């Protein structure tokens, strides 16, 4: 299928990229293109100019701080995270990235693109919320940081607004994490996914795919019944679509939450 005509820019610095994005109304950042190019092909989005971030070295790479904090550049690909020695400081990151789609998608798709597209079925939005990540956003007016749980605003909408770029995802130290998902097809998109983390006290359980944004649930303890009960009490309103009815998704959220927390507990001990 052919694309509509579109202008292409390849800025040399993050500053230039932000300027381009701010100047032109119809400008869109292009990261791995694994979502953007597809929606352009389907004509669900038709930007006038794509601002290709692939030349920006500043946005790539993973740094491990002395306290175990990970600074992950927005343009880091899933494969780079899977293969990174530094990223192993928080093993769940590589494990979840390894579950995303197929080799081709993992070689192109980026952490920044994954969270900025905020497709409710993506793997990383619930994960960065569960891990207590922080997002660094750059605009023409400068830089700010937003906690991951405030970053996701709506379907395909995040705190990185028009004219802004997500530059870094910061993940604190930790290890007691779990993730369980139900993909459609053996390696496909999720119907429900749940990320859980027991670091920092009470469990953080985050359910994806059931709402426009990841849903953070705080059970009182990591016991199966407490987790199940907390998810039930969250009153989830998941979609009803060609893949599954809403009621089944609610059931999945409970079972997967229990399984994700169990996996996190095994890590903790």
């Amino acid at each position, binding site marked *: *299928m*052919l694309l*509509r005509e579109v202008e292409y820019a390849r800025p040399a610095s993050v500053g230039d990229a932000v300027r381009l994005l701010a100047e032109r109304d119809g400008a869109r950042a292009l990261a791995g293109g694994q979502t953007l190019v597809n929606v352009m092909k389907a004509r669900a989005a038709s930007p006038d100019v794509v601002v290709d971030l692939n030349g920006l070295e500043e946005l790539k790479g993973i740094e491990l701080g002395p306290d175990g904090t990970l600074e992950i550049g927005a343009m880091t690909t899933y494969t780079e995270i899977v293969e990174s020695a530094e990223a192993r400081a928080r093993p769940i990151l590589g*494990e979840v990235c*390894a*579950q995303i789609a197929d080799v081709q998608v993992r070689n192109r798709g980026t952490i920044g693109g994954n969270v900025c597209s905020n497709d409710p079925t993506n793997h990383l939005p619930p994960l960065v919320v569960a891990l207590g990540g922080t997002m660094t956003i750059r605009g023409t007016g400068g830089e700010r940081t937003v906690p991951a749980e405030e970053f996701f605003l709506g379907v395909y909408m995040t705190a990185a607004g028009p004219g802004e770029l997500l530059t870094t995802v910061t993940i604190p130290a930790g290890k007691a994490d779990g*993730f*369980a*998902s*139900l*993909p*459609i*097809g*053996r*390696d*496909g*998109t*999720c119907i429900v*996914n749940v990320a859980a983390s027991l670091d920092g006290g009470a469990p953080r359980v985050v359910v994806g795919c059931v709402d426009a944004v990841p849903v953070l649930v705080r059970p009182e303890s990591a016991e199966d019944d407490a987790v199940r009960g907390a998810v039930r009490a969250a009153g989830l309103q998941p979609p009803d679509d*060609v*893949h*599954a*009815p809403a*009621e*089944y998704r609610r*059931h*999945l959220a409970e*079972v*997967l939450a229990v*399984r994700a927390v169990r*996996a996190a507990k095994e890590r903790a001990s």
Partner: protein
Amino acid sequence: MTVPAEKLRLGRVGESARRTDAVPKVTGEFAYSSDAYAAGMLWGRTVRSPHAHARIRSIDVSEALAMPGVHAVLTHEDVPGEKRYGLEFRDQPVLAFDRVRYFGEPVVVVAAEHPEQARRAADRVRIEYEPLEPIVDPERATEQEPLHPDRPTMGHGYRDDPRPNVVRSLVIRRGDPDARGDVSVSGVYELGIQDQAFLGPESGLAVPDGEGGVDVYVATQWLHVDRDQVAPCLGLRPEQVRIHLAGVGGAFGGREDLSMQIHGALLALHTNRPVKIVYDRQESFVGHIHRHPAKIWAEHRATRDGKLVCIRVRILLDGGAYASSSTAVTSNAASFACGPYAVENALVESTCVYTNNPPCGAMRGFGAVQSCFAHEAQMDKLAAALRIDPIELRLRNALAPGDSLPTGQRITGTLPVADVIRRCAELPVPEAEELPRDPIRLPGGAGNTTRGEGVRRGVGFAVGFKNIGYSEGFDDYCTARVRLLADGSAEVHCAAAEVGQGVANVILQTARTELDTDDLVLAPATTSSVGSAGSASASRMTWMAAGAVREACRAALAERERTGGEVDVERVYRHPRTTPFDPETGQVTGERAHVAYACAAMRVVAEVDVELGLTRVVWIGTAQDVGRAVNPQAVEGQIEGGTAQGLGLALMEEVQTRGGLITNASFTDYLVPTTLDMPPVESVLVEDPEPDAPYGVKGVGEPPTVVSTAAILSALRDATGRELTRVPVSFDEVVGLD
């Protein structure tokens, strides 16, 4: 790359000769129909109905015609000949007039210099519709306004059904349908709409010949029947339309009906330029017919020791908006409703209705898939009620040559039902794998959904059978032409469509065997150099092509013996004649209504995460009645591919609709099995040569699809203890949410 000498062996009948298309397909050099190209060609595009049912108030093409690069915008008014076409009945408009009857029905076609220009012009065609209430519930279709008031399927020798919207209704009555047994089990079964989901979307190239005629290069299953439908609509003589087979990217029945053929030819003749049309995936979902969804009510009565006494089955098929091959699917579903079992008393009623749902027609298994799903569920249920081993129950009732079917047809050829059951049951079932294991080897796959929690194992079994060849008195034949040249080489012509099933090899292996030489070529399949081969469907092509090529080769050799020079002979091969069913009783009116039968048995091991409803099929073993394998490796390939398609229907494949509109027309939302979903398949080829067939061959493409859906469901029921009466099985049904 060096290839060991034995690998290069070209191969005769019975050998696993390497396929001619295998390497080019793997390396990407194979030219599919979508690769067709001609200098100066235009691109065609089809404007389709967004409604399932609507009256067309007006069509305004003026704006589209004025768009840059546009050469033609055509409507039904531009169809010079017959306004309708159809495989069995001419009920389908080339371009809709007065009303549209299904979502995606073609209304206007456009040709432009560039595909994007064609797309934009298509967007500017103004069609005013008056939406009508769509008929979407097949159970109510016979009480609603007729979709085809002129009843296009009437008068073809079938029983006249006075109810509106009946495509065909067939009743088979045998013995005493009220006969009672010691036990009785009943069930209601449903199947969703399955798509052929071939990877190569509909595509082709039409080239005007400058003398009023046209050449069409297209991926199809039966070149001559395409020609015979295209020519009348163009107002041309058959020889003015030449159909040439372009590379086929899968067919499975979905290319029996026309797609772009008439549209491309119309545009080419109108513009006097070659015109190429390629559907995209979304368009492909409305560009061809699908497998009939069905609802089946069944009751089985048996004696205490497990002998079937009486079977009663009612089948309702949703044919969608146009007839396609629904009449034959209706009778097939009825013919195989009781399974490959001997039963004295039966009442089978099979009805296909018109609705405004997606049109349905031929798909691998053709009516027998639906029936097998129901009769095998019933046999398991009966075994449970009688506390008899399900395999033993099937053996006690297995049909054998000499037995009569509920249609009264006596099995005169081979049909080793008991043999395939035994041979399949003998295959050792693998032990359960240890935990923990790689998540890819657990239900849910890479999703890391379970580490063993909730996982239960089940083992299932099923047997199925189906006809080989066209039935009910259809004058079916296949033509082959053989040229023996002065240099000792030979050229074989046969218009059999190579759709990926390997018929090119069947032809080559047959000709090498008969002519006793490797120095021969198979000419491209076309209507311009040889007569009809019939359809690459109904598991008939191997039998028919082998028969025709063998006769032509033998005649050519005899001719050369006589004349000594170059020879060029054409021969037509026919299988034993069939006759129609009696329209009132469904009993055969001659020796046979179906040419022959083939059966298969399958055993399945599956694991189910019963908390989540996820499934992993772990292992499949099967024994299939193949008559004689022309190319054993190709037969195994058909068994594996056919099983994958049945697995798709069992677990994931369904075209979903709302109010007649398709809601999942993409491979993101319509899932097909991948290599990760397919378990290893161990196949046993049971060779019991068919007396009426050349070399004893039988078709092998359909039995695995017929039996696999049923066998997988049997395993899932064993694992979950649930009834699971609908396929594709839904996660929530496996979990037991209501």
